[in-house]
Each structure stands twice: as structure tokens, then as C-alpha cells.
């Protein structure tokens, strides 16, 4: 296939196409049906026919106007327009404000990758000010680590970074961290659920039980909260226990990371975790390992046990993402 060096460089026609390295495919070329604007293509209709709307050099051929149609004018130049260049002296930054846990740290993720770590004050407030950013849609994620070294669920916001402006986003409230005294409890034995949140906030705990019961606890001045649960009344099986906080009707979080607790005598075989390399994080490395098993029956990446590593498992990985 092809001739010459197999470097996959651009070919200006089908005849000029060049093998990609390994010679299993061609590099980009005019006639491959893909509009490669970076190589000056105005069109690419996947052929080398000159008698259609796209010529053999991938330049547009306007169709002949029907008889009697008015002629088409040219686009006027716009005075003073400077296409696509952002002046360097205009700042494009973001300021992000919210609440996590008192005197602890919050890891900031931008588009899934960690970019900074900020500290919170005694009221659990944090503020992050970015450097110069590229305008456009961005996802910022926040992972809090409390004083007991427990991590929160990743809270995300998606918004447009406005060019030449300081975009401030407030009211980013991280849900409480949550820990349990044991992940396997015999019915009737006590279970202690604890964590950190905003000082003096009310914590609502969802036990994901058939009774639909929710419990609550009050955080102290240090943000610590704890609750002892009578497990005798809970159904046998796994319970995904999660917590949310409310300080005022306007300062409250959604439910955070769920902790699985098995209530019963014999625990079923363990489930696999999105932390595929076991380093305590769920990040790009785990995602890469996950992709290797895509559409296979690999049990390590089939988190929901439906027999295939698919988008449902990807969704579970994104839920547990720590960056």
C-alpha cells in the first residue's frame, strides 16, 4: 500500500496519498471524505471527481445558478475586525468560591485533571483564583480532603469561561465526607457513621433502606459529625449510605459519595472498584486501563456486573473520579 516514506503526511490528492507508519492505513489526503481544514481543504467529498461540487484539489466548485437567478455578491470586509486573536493584556480568569470542610484542603480539577490545591478556613470556605485561561466551556471539579484524610465525592460545575473577563462562580458546596465503623455489620450490632462538613450544619443521612428512612446529625464547631445507627431494623443486604448538609435553605449540598455497608451474616463476593491500579485515586490512569477492557467481559472493569465493560461502567468510574 502506498509508496515512499511511510510517514502519513498529507496528500493533496488520492494519487498523492502517503502510507501512515506501519502501512496499515493512509495519512490524511484530499479524497478521503474528511474535511482537513488545517491542510487548506475547502471540501472533501471522498472522490477525485471534478464534475461535482468539490474539485480534485478539495476546493469548492459553486454550482451554476439556475437560469434567471440573481448573481451572488461578495462578502464585504468589516473595518477594524481582527479575527481570532486575543490581546495578551486582557485577563481571562476564573474565581471559584464555596464551602468544603474546616481547615482542610480542596483539590481543583479542570476538565478532569488536577490543577491546584487550596486551603479552607475555619468556616470551611475556600476560594480559588486561576491564572490566565483559554476561553470556552470548561468543567471544574472539587475534591475535598477532611482532617481525617477522608475524601469527598467530586463536585463539578460546567460553565463558559468568558474571554477578557474574570468569571466568578459562587455557591460551590461540597457534600460531607462519610466514614463507617465497619463495612460488614451483623444485624443488631451498632454502626457508627461519621465525617466532616460545614460547622454547625445539619447532616441528612440516606441509608438506602427499603424503609426509605433518612436520619440526621448536627455538625459541631469543627465540622465533625457522627451518628450511631441501630442495624436491627435494617434490611439484609448492601446499603449505599450517603450524606448531604444544610446550613440554611440556600447553603446546602446534594448527596455525596456513597459508602457501601453490608448488613447480614455472610457477605457476598466483593465488587470491583474503578481504582483499577489500586493507588487510591480514580484518574486518567484508571481510565486508560478501563479503555483496554472496553466491550469485553473483563470482570475487573465490569463494575455493575452486567457482563460487559460498557458506558454504564464508564458512568460509575466518572462518579468515583478523584483526579
Amino acid at each position, binding site marked *: 500500500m502506498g509508496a515512499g516514506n511511510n*510517514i502519513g503526511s498529507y496528500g493533496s490528492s488520492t494519487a498523492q496519498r502517503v502510507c501512515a507508519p506501519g502501512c496499515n492505513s493512509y495519512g490524511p489526503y484530499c479524497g478521503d471524505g474528511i474535511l482537513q481544514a488545517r491542510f487548506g481543504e475547502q471540501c472533501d467529498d471522498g472522490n477525485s471527481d471534478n464534475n461535482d461540487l468539490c474539485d480534485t484539489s478539495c476546493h469548492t*466548485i459553486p454550482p451554476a445558478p439556475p437560469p434567471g437567478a440573481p448573481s451572488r455578491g461578495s462578502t464585504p470586509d468589516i473595518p477594524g475586525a481582527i479575527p481570532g486573536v486575543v*490581546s495578551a493584556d486582557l485577563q481571562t480568569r476564573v474565581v471559584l468560591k*464555596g464551602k468544603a470542610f474546616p481547615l482542610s484542603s480542596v483539590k481543583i480539577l479542570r476538565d478532569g485533571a488536577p490543577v491546584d490545591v487550596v486551603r479552607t478556613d475555619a468556616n470551611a470556605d475556600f476560594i480559588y483564583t486561576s491564572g490566565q485561561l*483559554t476561553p470556552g466551556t470548561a468543567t471544574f471539579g472539587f475534591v475535598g480532603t477532611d482532617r481525617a484524610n477522608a475524601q469527598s465525592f467530586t463536585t463539578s460545575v460546567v460553565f463558559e469561561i468568558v474571554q477578557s473577563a474574570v468569571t466568578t462562580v459562587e455557591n460551590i458546596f461540597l457534600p460531607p465526607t462519610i466514614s463507617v465503623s465497619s463495612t460488614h455489620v451483623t444485624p443488631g450490632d451498632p454502626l457508627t457513621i461519621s465525617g466532616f462538613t460545614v460547622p454547625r450544619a445539619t447532616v441528612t443521612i440516606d441509608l438506602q433502606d427499603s424503609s426509605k428512612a433518612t436520619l440526621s446529625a448536627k455538625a459541631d464547631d469543627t465540622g465533625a459529625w457522627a451518628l450511631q445507627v441501630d442495624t436491627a431494623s435494617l434490611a439484609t443486604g448492601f446499603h449505599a449510605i450517603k450524606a448531604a448538609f444544610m446550613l440554611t435553605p440556600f447553603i446546602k449540598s446534594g448527596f455525596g459519595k456513597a459508602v457501601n455497608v453490608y448488613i447480614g451474616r455472610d457477605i457476598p463476593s466483593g465488587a470491583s472498584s474503578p481504582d483499577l491500579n489500586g493507588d487510591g485515586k480514580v484518574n486518567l490512569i484508571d481510565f486508560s*486501563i478501563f479503555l483496554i477492557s472496553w466491550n469485553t467481559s473483563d470482570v475487573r472493569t465490569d463494575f455493575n456486573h452486567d457482563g460487559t465493560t460498557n458506558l454504564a461502567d464508564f458512568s460509575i468510574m466518572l462518579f468515583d473520579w478523584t483526579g
Partner: protein
Amino acid sequence: MRRSLSVAMLALAGLIPLTANAATLSIDTPKTSYGRGDTFIATVRLDNDNECVNAAQVEIDYPTNLLRAVDFSRGDSIFSLWVGDPQIDTEKGTVTFSGGVPGGYCGRIAGDPAQSNIIGEIVFTVVGNDAENKAAVNLAASSRVYLHDGLGTPALLNLKGVTLSLMPVPTQDSNPWLAQVGDDATPPESFAVQVESTRDVFGGKYYAVFSTVDKQSGLDHYEIFEDGVWNRVSSPHVLKDQTLNSGVMIRAIDKAGNIRLGDYDAKSVPPRQYSFAEMFSFYLLLGIAVLAIIIRLYFARHAARENSASPAS
């Protein structure tokens, strides 16, 4: 002195809803009428409608006798992770892609000047016949959106395609996609190249992991410098040079050809992990070597005893 504007938004991250509503995948175009030879950008949007979601797989159908999908842009997408590259099949008339948002997407935040709900943009060219016609660009029923609930639950989903009126003559003087690419002088975002070794992955061999985004025309592909040339590559990639002596150079290239070289820190590379097969082979060879030494020593001692026991002649 020029001062920056200030834009305020309220995340209201606390208002993550608990009610189950239907998310909506939709397609829109700047106009609903195009002519033969026109190129336009169709935007695929995800409206969460009070539901936090984090991943989607999307399949779009279009009539191949009227339209041709010529490119796909991730430039404005809220997705930062993609399961493979978006696929355009010009024979079947389909565009498919899958991606997600770490931490989930809970909708537009108050004050955001943009809708911030784009998941992808498809560039179409009208190739239709000379007669006026209608072209429907639809979202296939196989499309899925998943809730951000840690359980992999599919969201209830509404699908909204778009129907376009096609004329026999062009309706626009310029190609908006070429204009967008031409205006892009900014390279992809800076990114780290991590080199890893995991016992059960690629037999413990060193592999590179990388990901970035481009906010303008969108990311096109990655390349790695190996064997003296730049080769197209995707993450994860098993490195040819397992000694790592030649370094690791990976670059991201956007649709406009702007290039960003990834940051590689050789000091962050973990020790090489060996697969069980390699460890088994190593210990087998070690065992054989030890056994050979023992046998040799045994025979040497035996020969020495025989020599010392035999009477002097």
C-alpha cells in the same frame, strides 16, 4: 489601562435534584434552510432537566443522498473524556461518539452567558440533488445518557433531531467551519504525559497516558515521537523504548494544526512492574541455575572424595 470585565455566576451545587426527570439530547443548526454546496455546523446538546448526568453515547443518522458529515468538533464540548474518537460512517450515514464529564454535569449554572450544554458539533456539507428536498438529521434510539448516581443507571431520555429544507443553490457565501478553524491560533490546553507500569496491564510494560482538550476548533489527534518520526497515537500507548532512555515526547494537534507538546516528568515514572509470566520465567531460570550449581558442586565433591579415597600409586 484596560480592565477585565467581571462575570458572576451561582453554581447552586447544593441543589442536586433527587427527582427523576427525562434528559434531552437534541440537535440544532444555525438555520433550517441550506443549499447545495453549503457547509454548516450541527450542534448536539444535552439538557439535563434537573437530573445530574455524567456520560452519553450518541448515534446520529442522516440521509447520505442529501448530506455528508465531513468532520466532528469537540471544541465546545462539556465532555473532557472520550471513549475512542468520534466515528463518521459516510456510507451508512451515521455519526457516533461516547464521552463523559468527571464529577458529573448538573446543568447550566445561574449567570452563565453560554448554554454550556454542547456535547459535540458535526460539520455537514449539503450534497443533495437539484430538487428541493427535506433532510432529517435524527438521534438514533440506541443513544444513551447515564445518571451521575454511581450505579450506571440510564436516564429517561427525549431525543430531538432537526429537519432541514434543502435548496438547489447555495444559501451562504462562506464556510463557517473553515472560518472557525481559520480563527483558531491557540494550541490545545497544556497536558501531562504520565508513564505507568501496572502488573496486569500490557504485561507490566511501560505505557503512556495522556489527555487534553482544545477549546476552539477541537482536538484532532495525538502523535508520539518514536523511531525518529512522529506517529499518530492514542492513550494508552505501550512505549517502544522500554528503557525510557530516549524520553517520551507526545503532542496534541487541533483541527487547525496548532500543536501542544505534553509535559513529561521522567522523575515521576514508577518502578517497572513485572507480569506473573515474567516473574515465573525469572524464578524458573533462577531455580535451574541454582540446581545446576548444586549438581556441579555435588559431582565436584564426589570426584574429590574418590580422588582422596583412591590409594597412591
